[in-house]
């Protein structure tokens, strides 16, 4: 008993008191900022392994970006990745960061279905489906519920059965072999339900886009409520995205 208490005491305070304002240590590649400086846009776009960089004006699609930082490394005067981890959006177009626009990525409240905030504002139970995910986003979803990030303090939990869930979180580009199980699981979740895509692979297919072993038809035909970019998505991106989607934001 005493040794248990000693261990507990030695851990100190681990939890992040305010997950909306936490500052990440060291370097982190979050929301990029593209300056208006002159640069060879074609050369920048050519660097990208996943074709996330668009031209006229220069833009980065966070739904495709693998956050490798190669563009910022080669053209530091043009592109910089900030430590802003709040990059989840409920409109796919909002993930596209354009030249000269240094504004936060935000959830559009007018596009959130009424029942989401009414029903899931205080409690949200999610079923996770890995459909070709490489286990990095899965690790970070697990981490979102460890003692530091502690997502369950907001009433957001992952549950074992789709029958217990209010929605699904998909990771991975959706492989052909997982397409049917994904559909079955989605159908088993009672209405109303939400669909969240976590990580670049889920949002666009990432580096696997175009692979014949991938089947994106479920993603294309289903209404997506939240896009959480990242490779993998950071736990703070996940938590803030889910909170912003389901809660009414307090305007300061």
């Amino acid at each position, binding site marked *: 008993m005493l040794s248990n208490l000693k261990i507990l005491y030695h*851990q100190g305070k681990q939890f992040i008191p305010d997950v909306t304002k936490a500052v990440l*240590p060291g370097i982190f590649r979050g929301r990029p900022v593209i300056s208006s400086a002159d640069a060879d846009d074609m050369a920048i776009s050519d660097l990208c*392994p996943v074709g996330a960089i668009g031209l006229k004006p220069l833009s980065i699609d966070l739904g495709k970006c693998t*956050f490798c930082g190669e563009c910022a490394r080669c053209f530091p005067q043009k592109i910089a990745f900030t430590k802003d981890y709040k990059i989840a959006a409920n409109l796919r177009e909002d993930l596209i960061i354009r030249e000269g626009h240094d504004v936060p990525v935000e959830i559009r409240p007018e596009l959130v279905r009424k029942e989401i905030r009414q029903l899931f504002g205080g409690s949200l139970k999610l079923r996770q489906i890995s459909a070709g995910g*490489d286990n990095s986003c899965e690790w970070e979803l697990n981490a979102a519920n460890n003692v530091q990030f502690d997502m369950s303090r907001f009433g957001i939990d992952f549950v074992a059965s789709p029958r217990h869930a209010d929605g699904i979180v998909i990771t991975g580009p959706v*492989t052909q072999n997982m397409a049917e*199980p994904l559909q079955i699981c989605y159908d088993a979740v009672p209405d109303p339900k939400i669909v969240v895509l976590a990580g670049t692979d889920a949002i666009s297919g990432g580096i696997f886009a175009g692979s014949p072993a991938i089947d994106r038809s479920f993603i294309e035909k289903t209404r997506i409520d939240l896009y959480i970019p990242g490779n*993998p998505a950071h736990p703070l991106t996940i938590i803030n995205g889910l909170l912003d989607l389901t809660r009414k934001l307090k305007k300061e």
Partner: protein
Amino acid sequence: MNYLSIKNNQTVSIAEIPETDYYAFRVLVVGMVVSHPERHCVNYFGYQQEESIKLICCIADDFLHVINVLSCRVKASDSLDSLTSDCLAFEKFEREIHENFGVFFKGHPWLKPVRYPVDRADRSETIANYPFWGIESEELHEVGVGPIHAGIIEPGHFRFVCNGEQILHLEIQLGYQHRGIEKLFLEKKKLIERATLAEAIAGDTVVGHSTAFAHVWESLCGFESSADIEYVRTLALELERIAIHTGDLSAVCTDIAYQLGSAVFGRLRTPIINFMQEWGGNRLSKGLIRPGRNPFLFTPELAVRLHHVLDVFEPDFNEMNKRLFQLPSALSRFERTGIVSYEDVLSIGTVGMSARMSGLNRDIRSSHPYGWYGLLSHDPIIKHHGDVYSRVQIRKQEVVQSMGYIRTLLGQIPDGVTPQDTSLEARPESFAISLVEGWRGEICHCALTDKKGELMQYKIKDPSFHNWLALALAVRNNEISDFPICNKSFNLSYSGHDL
């Protein structure tokens, strides 16, 4: 000689690899591995060459520190005497070759599908209608789990045949994660695209797989990697080992319902992966390892930080372990649960931790050293019981060992920045092999180039490829309620297996 002996990370011309007929090839391979525990097959695969299929087999010799490479040519319609009938460790490789090309292996006990790849020889069967092996009996029942599991983990199907609470047989069917990654290596021509693919083979072994890819590619291009480039790879490999082993200790505690251990080990992983982010901008080290260069220098300031991180980590880690291994309730769940014998791990050819748990010394860091491991003179941690306890002990001790290596490395940060060579050109008609000891075990990447120096075949073998069978054997005669703890104590990769 009918085979070629090469070193880890060596490139040779394809023409130098002796090619024999299948009969001579088979005699040679069987002679090399049967009754020789110091030799094992690290990769055996085929690729289409005009009308025929070329098979390449790589046998690592841990005593001589070489890899013997040999080849033969067969036809898709052939029916060949299997290697499996003499050495069970080939069963998975032959199943893979059968699945990809249709070659039939006589005497193979069960040519069960490996992963239902998109380019398989027989497209008429799909993973959805796979007929699981069953036993007709009124006393027995089956339990099906997956592909979607209860936790936040990757998909795979487990089919148990049980007698009451006792597991008689477990069949594992994987393939749900198949993304066609080996083909994408050939289709994507840019180096950064391939490096990104390597990172996605298994997102929990980013450093392991991207180091193997970097080594293969640099070797193919004749690039002499420098001390500072190899330094960060060795350092990152050991940090990855600490992070994942600590996380696994947490997972094992979760599965025996030991809350304190689960919470403490879970939170102890965070400072290590947060350090990876401080260094390279990504908690799982994506973007950290690139062929031919070192994108994120390891500075003396980072060394001070890492020293501090480890100094804070170590007492908490040791205190928690001391408590865990004193708890009778924990020990009774660990000891004699999920045993795999030495004979079994040897015959099925497990690697890494899943071999060392049962007294089989398989560790690339000491047998085929690369990077800075030669200087660290690594001594593998070997256990003998092959149970959950052995696997948990290996994790605990390897974390301590890795901390020692990191502290040694931190005293020897190499000076200078190597000029970054990004215009790497692969040599034509060459073969390269790279072995890396990831935290799970041996990772093997092989690459072959064509006349123009373009990649013609890229073959990845994750340690999980063989080790999944060890899990299936471990749970036999155990209670089904012990399956989770057995599974977590192995923590094998689905995506690394399915590719």
